[in-house]
């Protein structure tokens, strides 16, 4: 019983350990890959193409699309570490992401864009308003690899359902508070960039 208890504790500890969240700019950073949507909030999810826990994040994103159709611009940005990892652009996770309706898939060579947005953990999600204000940053799952009710998902859902969709929003008062939630997933980048040894799956 002790062994089972310790084992379950270790599992819980791993599943509940949030990943690193970098510093996300409050205003939309310029980049060559993704652009801010003009009529809706823009949601970007940063993902590691091989991270098994991110399946749950994709599942929650799909749920968001179903619950708030047409109310946000969805983008998934997969990290591509370099030319040697060309095969990662066609991983099972990428294929799974392509099945989510109304979501655009991009590949972030060497994680350049992810670093601009402060993403360090797979599943890290940011939501910017039409005028480029940060509304949400963090994860949309409750723990590593687990679907189910969680504060991040609920926060994003509230944001996209409250935010009006018409273009002219000068007289609309945007949500002033920014929401955050812990993110759970694999690290997007190597821990020691100076000693990169790629081990393919």
């Amino acid at each position, binding site marked *: 019983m002790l*062994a089972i208890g310790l*084992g379950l504790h270790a599992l819980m500890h791993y599943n509940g350990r949030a990943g690193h969240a970098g510093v996300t700019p409050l205003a939309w950073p310029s980049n060559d890959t993704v652009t801010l949507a003009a009529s809706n909030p823009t949601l970007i999810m940063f993902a590691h193409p091989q991270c*098994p826990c991110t399946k749950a994040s994709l599942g929650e994103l799909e749920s968001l699309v179903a619950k708030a159709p047409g109310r946000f611009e969805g983008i998934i940005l997969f990290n591509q570490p370099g030319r040697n990892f060309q095969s990662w652009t066609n991983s099972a996770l990428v294929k799974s992401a392509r099945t989510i309706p109304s979501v655009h898939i991009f590949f972030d060579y060497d994680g350049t864009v992810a670093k601009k947005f402060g993403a360090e953990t797979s599943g890290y999600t940011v939501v910017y308003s039409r005028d480029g204000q940060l509304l949400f940053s963090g994860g949309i799952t409750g723990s590593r690899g687990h679907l*189910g009710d969680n504060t991040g998902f609920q926060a994003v859902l509230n944001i996209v359902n409250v935010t009006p969709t018409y273009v002219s929003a000068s007289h609309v008062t945007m949500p002033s508070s920014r929401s955050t939630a812990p993110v759970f997933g694999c690290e997007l980048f190597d821990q020691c960039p100076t000693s*990169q040894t*790629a*081990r393919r799956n």
Partner: protein
Amino acid sequence: MPDQPDSAPQLNPTTAGGLVQQYRDRLARNTSQIFAVLMLLQWAGAIFTAFIVSPRTWSGTTSSVHIHLWAAIILGGIITALPVALALLYPARVVTRHVIAAGQMLMSALLIDITGGRIETHFHVFGSLAILAFYRDWRVLITATIVVYIDHVARGLYWPQSVYGVLYASPWRAVEHAWWVGFEVVFLTIAIRHSVSEMYEIASRQVELHDSNSKIEAEVKERTAELSSINKQMETFCYSMSHDLKAPLRGIHSYAQILAQDHGNELTSQAKDCLGRIQESATKMNRLLNDLLEYSRVSTAKFTVVPVEISKVTNEAVRLLAAEIQEQGATIKLEPDLGIVLGHEATLIQVMLNLLGNALRYGKLGVPPVLNVRSETCGNRLRISVADNGVGIAPEYHQKIFEIFERVPTPKTQDSTGIGLAIFSKAIERLGGSVGVESTPGIGSTFWFELPGVAAVAPIANSDAQVTATVN
């Protein structure tokens, strides 16, 4: 190591309670064995699922084995080991089923975690409860419910987001989750109690039926013994009467003969005719008594069965019928080797005498009888048949002719005692064989009998030499 009974006393298996206990033990064994296989399959399934769903965890371009895979292998193994061991070693014990219940719920928790909290995996809990109900022991479901509840309470306190997806959860959420488990448990418990109640009803009826059958069997035995005793008494009476009647009959026959020989020339033709009838009647009566005595003998005598050559007994019967054969101009054709059967020589001579004698007696008028004696193998038995070209027998008499005093109503059978074929049938029956007839009126008849055959390995010089069995 044999499964030792639990501390509860073993009830008498002839009572309803005892029968139910036996059945529940058997049920417990079977269910534990089902769980042993199921838990091993679950363990393998958990490892396979973890390998497919989350084999490695990543940090940029480097990876290592995912903790889920380690959990499936190690934690899954620990959860599975004890229940499976108990299921195989002590399948019927009460502690086994409770350990299995706890293990199954812990496996549910592990599978839910490995599959990322999929709602479908939660059904494993409810499916497991249904299978645990196979034990027909509602207490097992309580153990399972407690494990689920402790899991939810503990995780709700230390890691609520893993269960409810929120950082702070009311303790009542645990009750709500356990409620759904309890909901199923309530109805399963009702079903189990009904099932056990039915078991007792069926067992009670079984006991009643068994008692009733026992009484009937005892009565049947008693009645059979009575009937047997009466039969024996009748046979003894028959034998005694037949035997005792022979002496006065001999007297009648002898004195009639003396009268005919010494005073025949003093008698009128009418008186001579009466004397002739007296002698004839005495002869018939003597024949009837002889047949009755023979019937009585074959019915009661103790036979020592030995290998008997059919050719030998047939030749003896032919020799005894030589005068009749010559008188009728009959032809007897015998197969060179008719084989060997397990029987009684003297009785089989009588059998062949009856069969050949009948065949000679019931030939067609003006047609010399032709008799064929053959043998054929039927499995481990030998069938001996005597075929004739006589008057034949109508089908409605094929069964009746083997009964005592039954005869086919023809002019030729008026002088028959009606016992010959009954003697034949009884004799073969007592030697463990069977008899039969195939006959067409106007064509002829084939009488046959079957007895256990013996493979001939050496000529039998003395039929007493090989004693194989005694027939009572």
